[in-house]
């Protein structure tokens, strides 16, 4: 059947080509495909909903401007847009730090959001602790983790988005998760945080962890 091609099934490169010709429907589809996840990464990077909205909008405005110069196959849109967003997050974070240091601006507080399904799954105080730990990660580790978890990117794409090698991206993830794991272990040792599953908080759980540590040391020998 002749007529307008079905843009819904077209790949990102084709949609960018259409956007270059001013096709807003094609660009709208790119926004629909990617904006939520880009915003989720920005939100958990910055801890601030307004910043996340701003970063997401600016990233897509950059994509709209870039459309005319987009070269098929040079980069994946689904990686490129995260690279733009993460760079803007990092810029924003650094500007905030300078303003805070100069006492021009209050440090951004994590947004107080309405509880959702995820909040109910993990006790609120533990959830807040995890969010604080993530916000405290170094920028590139935080970005790598969010790209892996929120954007579901593999190490190759994370490397491309952050401008580092795949091996370096893997190391960023290792360091990020190791830090978060250590913080979680410390919280467990300090005492139960909220309603953690009994197996994690009782002395039996601690004993099992100690036993596992001893056995691990034995296996390494």
């Amino acid at each position, binding site marked *: 059947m002749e007529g307008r091609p079905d843009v819904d099934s077209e790949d990102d490169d084709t949609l960018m080509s259409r956007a270059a010709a001013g096709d807003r429907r094609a660009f709208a589809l790119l926004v629909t495909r990617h904006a939520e996840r880009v915003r989720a990464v920005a939100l958990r990077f910055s801890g601030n909903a307004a910043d*996340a909205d701003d970063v997401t909008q600016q990233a897509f405005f950059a994509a709209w*401007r870039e459309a005319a110069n987009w070269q098929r196959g040079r980069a994946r849109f689904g990686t490129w847009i995260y690279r733009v967003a993460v760079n803007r997050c990092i810029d924003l974070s650094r500007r905030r730090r300078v303003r805070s240091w100069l006492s021009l601006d209050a440090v951004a507080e994590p947004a107080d959001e309405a509880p959702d399904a995820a909040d109910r799954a993990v006790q609120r105080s533990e959830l807040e602790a995890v969010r604080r730990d993530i916000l405290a990660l170094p920028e590139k580790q935080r970005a790598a983790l969010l790209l892996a978890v929120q954007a579901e990117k593999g190490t190759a794409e994370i490397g491309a988005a952050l401008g580092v090698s795949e091996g370096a991206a893997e190391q960023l993830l290792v360091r990020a998760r190791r830090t978060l794991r250590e913080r979680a272990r410390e919280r467990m040792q300090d005492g139960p945080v909220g309603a953690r599953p009994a197996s994690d908080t009782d002395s039996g759980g601690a004993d099992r962890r100690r036993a596992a540590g001893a056995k691990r040391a034995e296996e390494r020998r």
Partner: protein
Amino acid sequence: MTIEEFETLLLAHGANPRHWPAGRRAAAEALLAESEVARALFDEAKRLDAAIAAGTAAPAAGGALAARILAGLDAAPPERVFGLGRLFAWSGSTAAAALMAGFLVGHAIGGPDHSANLLALTAGELTEIEAMP
């Protein structure tokens, strides 16, 4: 695969075996089947994954965000400047037209007959003006 390598795998890729690199998955699963320590690390990694997933989950912005982005495009129109390649193509065809015009004018008013060289130059067979006598 050693316990240390398995631990690094979990830290890099999480506890979902589908996310593990294909080249390391079989060895990791074999270790998981035989080592209690590996299973303890795996269980801990699963809990960490759940905590990170919960900690990074974000409420959906819904259609409002997309609408704001699309409404703002007018302030960020696509760049319609010519790319470098297109600029060269344009200048090349313009130069060829100018050469042809020069040839025709020169031919009309007389003078040495460089018509063959001019035609060759226009067609791209000569690349330097010095090639002409």
